[in-house]
Every structure is written in C-alpha cells, then in structure tokens.
C-alpha cells in the first residue's frame, strides 16, 4: 500500500505519538539513572529526542527547558554533512557552536538506529561534558579533579574521550 493511500487510524496515530514520547522519556530516565554527574542526574541539564532520517523531530523530552529545541538543527546539519554516509550504529558527537551547536560545553550525541529497513532513529542526548566518568577539568565541572588524578583515569568516558565533533564508536 502506498504512503498516500494508507488509511490513517486516529487511535493508532495517538499510539504512535505516545510511543514516541515514552521512548524519549525512557531515554532521559536511562541517562539520569546511569550518569555520575549531578548536573545531569540532579539538575537534569539535558534533553533527549528522536528524529527521522531527514532530521525531522518526532518527539523530545526537555528536562531543562532552555535546551528544548536545540537538538533539531544539529541533527539536520549532521544529516546534510554526512549525506548517505551514515550507517546503523554510527554515533556522532557534536559541540561545534558554529555548525548549529548550542554551546561548547554541551555535547550532543546522536546514534543512528540499527533498523534493518531504510529508516533510522537518532538518539541524541545533550548535557554538559562531565557525565559518566565523574569530574573533569572542562566545562561546568561540579568539582575539580583530585590532586594527582588524571582526567579519564578511572573509567573511560562516553563523552570526553571521544573526538569533540564526531565519533563512530564509543557508546
């Protein structure tokens, strides 16, 4: 059945909308419960969202309103920048303020879904740099690193050990 001819079921439409919302909510809950940074788990300084293959926003969960609509422009930029050279499982890190980034301290993470069909799902999360690996001497670090301790020494960071603009692995 073609897209145009597909009958729209109002109930199913609502199911889709609520499903999108549940997914972005669960992404936020997952990040909140796994991060070690109080900026994320207590201040909830991040937003999660889902985007289609063209970078169109399907839904988002804005934990801090100031970040509400800051992921969409970056997603469209990434889609345009890489063209068709994005593959299932690819992860993109982005914080360049001159290519639609929000601010340098905010690192957006996008993951292309692993769907076997021609459709992909972006899974971005935005937050300040210190996240899963504790304090770092960068960004709005909640506390300075202890004397003699190297940044990233205790655990590999999902965010800060990757290249600042793009990465294809690490999550």
């Amino acid at each position, binding site marked *: *059945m*073609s*897209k*145009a001819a*597909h*009958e*729209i*079921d109002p109930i*199913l*439409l609502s199911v*889709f*909308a609520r*499903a*999108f*919302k549940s*997914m972005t909510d669960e992404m936020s809950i997952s990040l909140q419960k796994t991060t070690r940074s109080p900026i994320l788990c207590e201040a909830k300084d991040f937003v999660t969202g889902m985007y*289609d293959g063209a970078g*169109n*926003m*399907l*839904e*988002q969960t*804005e934990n*801090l*309103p*100031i*970040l*509400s*609509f*800051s992921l*969409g*422009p*970056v997603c469209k930029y990434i889609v345009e920048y890489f063209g068709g050279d994005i593959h299932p499982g690819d992860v993109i890190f982005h914080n360049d*303020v*001159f290519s*639609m*980034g*929000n*601010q*340098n*301290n905010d690192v957006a993470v996008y993951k292309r*879904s*692993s*769907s076997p*069909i*021609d*459709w992909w*799902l972006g899974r971005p999360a935005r937050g300040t740099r210190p996240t899963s690996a504790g304090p770092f001497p960068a960004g709005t670090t909640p506390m300075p690193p202890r004397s003699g301790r190297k940044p990233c020494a205790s655990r590999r960071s999902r965010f800060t050990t990757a290249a600042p603009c793009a990465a294809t692995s690490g999550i």
Partner: protein
Amino acid sequence: MLRFLEKYGLDCYEAHKQALFEATRRMMEAEIATIPSGEYHGEAMVYYDGRNDDRHYAIRVKITVQDRRVVFDYSASDAQTNGFVNGTYTSSASAAILTFLQMVNPDIPHNQGMVEPLEIIIPRGTILNAAYPAATTYGNHLCPPNADAIIRALAPVIPIGSPPDGTTCSVR
C-alpha cells in the same frame, strides 16, 4: 521501536508520522490564527558582555504574524560582543520557539509539525548568532532577555498565559 515497526510496517509508520506532523502543524496554526495579523516589536537589554561593565547591548525582535505563520526577525539586534556573552543560532532559536510555545499553548506535541509555521531570522554576526571565532560561553544566558523581548512584543495581543521573565529556565 523495531518491534513497533514489525507490527505495523514501514508504510503505516510513515503515513501516521506525516499525519502526526500535519495534525500538530494545524494545532500550531490554530493558535497563531488567534493572534491579530501584524508586526510586533520587542526589545530587551543585555548589561554585560563578559569584559566591559559599561557596555549595553540590545536584543530587538520584529515578530510578523500573517497567514497562520510567525516570523521572528532579529536583524535589528546589536552586533556580537568582543567578550564571551554571545549567542548561537540554535540556542537563540530554541529560546524563541520555547517562549512562543509557552505563550500560546505548551501542550502542543513537540515535533516537526509544531515548528513548521515558525520562521526565525538571526543574521550571523549579531549578539544572538555570533560569527567565528567569537566566544559564546554565555550564549545560553541570553535566552532570558531574548524571551523578554518576545514577551514585550506579544503581550499586548497574548495577554493571558504570558510566562514570567526567565521562561527558558522554568516550565509553566
């Protein structure tokens, strides 16, 4: 999500996704239709650029409401600073969308259809969209005065539900 697609199929998903965008766009357009067509102007000041205590900068917005579309034009805003108080396009546009959404109806679903009737013009090189290599560390802190400018412009025609200052840091 994959199980969801397996159950309903890609065509069904695509059709309902577009229908969702369309329904959401109509919701936003219906809210815009309640605002009298015309041009509305708002201004707010920024009192610190990160380096100079005595310099002030103006955020000026011209909001045009017509044909169920809204254009936010920041072309008359002051130029970027030589300090670290400069905005980025994404941060500034996000504040504009959020502020308007809070003023009209924050319960509209947040998807592509919601933002389609909105156009945001922020010339590069202005305080809300600084050009390379400007420092932008405090860009997010320009969101409240940005919201103030929008509220001052639209408050006469959207008097009920106007959020307080600092709307970008709180949800109504």
